[in-house]
């Protein structure tokens, strides 16, 4: 890196399924104000803004143009990015890249989604797939995860009950996070008896539709040290996409999450991620995905993660603190979701996560973004330099 960089402020909205009281731009302004307040900065000090949402899901074009005036950023440098589900991850990666050039003092990373305003099924489902191949199938996130979960159960011995355990764990975490959307007080029985969408996926297993925004402020080292005494250093990041062909995602050796983790771990000499990374905020769009992701980030062997849930080892104050915020099944403003992960991971590193703070020293945290076609973005945060 040309410059070492740190996150000096984070912000997010209270995520809800509907926000009829605000426009998309006003929703963004809430997250930006929250981040600026957290960093004790004003918009005057920000000189570059990167932003994005999965705009097809919201049904508009070029929203950055009318959000910029609303957040008081006319005259600033910046641009909008979008990589479908991983949008927030790519926006964060762009803010890291721009801050690391050292050309700017402070970069604002902003992502949002206001799903109460549009019928997003087209963009989130078949519309996101290749029009000639996978787009020809009635493939949506629901059927996609049903297929993959079935394959996982078949290979691993995991049962429906284990998947329900994952969902209950996620809800227990969300209950402690005031920003989370779904805080339901679930029991195994409730999950097991929930409406079936596509076996084995029940409604509670899928991420909800959310109106929400998240923001963070990234500065090069010199500025970061001036702004805050609790900088969260961005150790590394990697966007890794494979694009379109769903079949490729089936082979565990070609998983982009595994690949991206391998690259980043190697660059920083991480050999035992379970020990060396103390907090995980990983984008699981459906509860069973969490099982596969736990394996792919290197916490346990392939097809054994369900046993960790059986042994009650996953949770905020347990051996594996995976998604202490409640994760994506509780809150999913698609485009913003990876930035929500980043915000939550940064709060964990700072020790500011409140009720869902993981006990003990959090030296490293890993946040990810995920896209339905197998895209992944890895963001590795660190407390000390």
């Amino acid at each position, binding site marked *: 890196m040309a410059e070492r960089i740190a996150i000096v402020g984070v912000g997010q909205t209270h995520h809800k399924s509907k926000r009829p009281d605000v426009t998309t731009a006003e929703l963004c302004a809430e997250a930006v104000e929250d981040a600026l307040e957290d960093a004790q900065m004003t918009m005057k000090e920000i000189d570059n803004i990167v932003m*994005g949402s999965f705009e097809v899901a919201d049904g*508009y074009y070029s929203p950055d143009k009318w959000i910029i005036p609303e957040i008081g950023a006319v005259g600033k440098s910046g*641009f909008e990015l*979008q990589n479908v589900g991983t949008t927030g991850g790519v926006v964060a990666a762009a803010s*890291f890249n721009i801050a690391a050039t050292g*050309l700017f003092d402070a970069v604002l990373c902003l992502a949002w989604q206001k799903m109460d305003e549009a019928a997003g099924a087209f963009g989130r489902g078949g519309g996101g797939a290749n*029009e000639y191949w996978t787009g020809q199938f009635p493939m949506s996130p629901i059927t996609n995860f049903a297929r993959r979960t079935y394959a996982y159960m078949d290979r691993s011995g995991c049962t429906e009950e284990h998947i329900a355990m994952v969902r209950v764990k996620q809800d227990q975490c969300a209950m402690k996070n005031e920003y989370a959307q779904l805080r339901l007080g679930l029991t195994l029985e409730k999950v097991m008896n929930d409406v079936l969408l596509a076996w084995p996926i029940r409604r509670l297993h899928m991420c909800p539709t959310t109106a929400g925004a998240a923001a963070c402020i990234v500065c090069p080292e010199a500025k970061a040290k001036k702004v805050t005494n609790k900088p969260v250093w961005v150790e590394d990041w990697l966007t890794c*996409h494979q*694009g379109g062909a769903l079949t490729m995602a089936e082979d565990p050796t070609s998983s982009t999450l595994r690949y991206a983790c391998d690259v980043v771990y190697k660059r920083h000499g991480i050999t035992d991620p379970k020990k060396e990374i103390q907090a995980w905020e990983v984008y699981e769009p459906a509860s069973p995905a969490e099982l596969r992701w736990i394996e792919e980030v290197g916490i346990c062997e392939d097809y054994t993660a369900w046993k960790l849930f059986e042994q009650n080892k996953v949770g905020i104050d347990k051996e594996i603190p995976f998604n202490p915020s409640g994760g994506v099944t509780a809150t999913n403003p698609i485009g913003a979701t990876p930035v929500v992960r980043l915000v939550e991971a940064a709060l964990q590193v700072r020790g500011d996560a409140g009720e869902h703070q993981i006990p003990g020293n959090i030296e490293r945290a890993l946040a990810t973004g995920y896209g339905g076609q197998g895209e992944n973005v890895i963001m590795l945060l660190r407390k000390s330099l």
Partner: protein
Amino acid sequence: MARRVGIVAVAQTKFEERKSTLHTGELMYDVTRDVMGQTGLEFKEGGIDSTVAASYDLLSGPAGAYMFLGYVVGAYQREDERVLEDGSTAVYYGAMQILSDHCDTVLLVAYTKESAVDKNMYEWVGMDQIYQRRVGLDFVSAAGLQAMRYTTKYGITPEQCAKVVVKSRKNAGNNPFAMCCDNLTVDDVLRSAMLCDPIRVQEAKPVPVDGACAIILASEEKAKKITDKPVWITGIGTCYDHHELGWRDLADCDALTTAAQRAYKMAKITNPLKELDLAEVSEQYSYQELLWSEGLGFCSKGEGGKLIDSGKTEMGGELPTNPSGGMLSGIPVCVAGMQRVVECVLQLRGEAGARQVSGAKKAVAHGVDGPAGQLHCVITLEN
């Protein structure tokens, strides 16, 4: 800029009204494989580190068509990002990826099939939901308002605007990639039907146009190894203006002035008219070349009309502007800004054929996005 970013390869398609036989992925394939062939770089270790696409989902049909890079072009399991702005912004971001030391080589691609969509429809959804969309404003009517305000405030004549079109179409005759090259006269332009007062049909970019372009960027050390004719990015700048048309004086383009100053400061350019050898600007409408020339500092505010009258922006003039024919000769939106950079690179390498500006050493490329020029991006280049 402390370090330089090199452009080591460029490619573009022929721009045509309808490339109906080409799927978006195939459109991308042609230009990306072209630049990869020029450099010998492949999608593997030590090859291309990252890809940045520029496109709009609403313009290309399928959500996230940039993903064709994955399995049509072969950019599999690597850094892959996409900007939703004009292609110039992808160049801006690609350069940032290299300046941050995160990547050594970045492949950029911009693609658009305007023939697949209704340009007015998506430009209408580009207006804010509450105030401007409800009165039916789209980018054409926004440009009409801007043209009216600009020409009225500064006394720019219809003839001066028409001259821009005549120049563009004439220059396009030297450009084998251009779509429209004809010997229009000022009279022809002024006699064409009214599109959006005071903009006439011939004064607007032809619609639809399909096409794509690609670029490979490399860090200074790597660029020198890849090619003996690297073109350097010496300065980059972007700037947002107000969205609400009533909140800015449409006769001026303050955001462009700021973006240009940001780029010129990095490149240490103080007198662009004298120091630059050519300019490629994004003008969707005739008046824009005049107004953008002011923002880019080629003349002072309100002097755009005099600038075209002086002949300085003609081929052979002091600062030939759009030797390629520019957008008025038919370049799709989104591709336009990146294609301006492609044209500048060809000029600075001395490979621009009949449209070559002799001895070109420094150039500026300009891209714009949003209604009435809301987001500008300026890139200065040097050989």
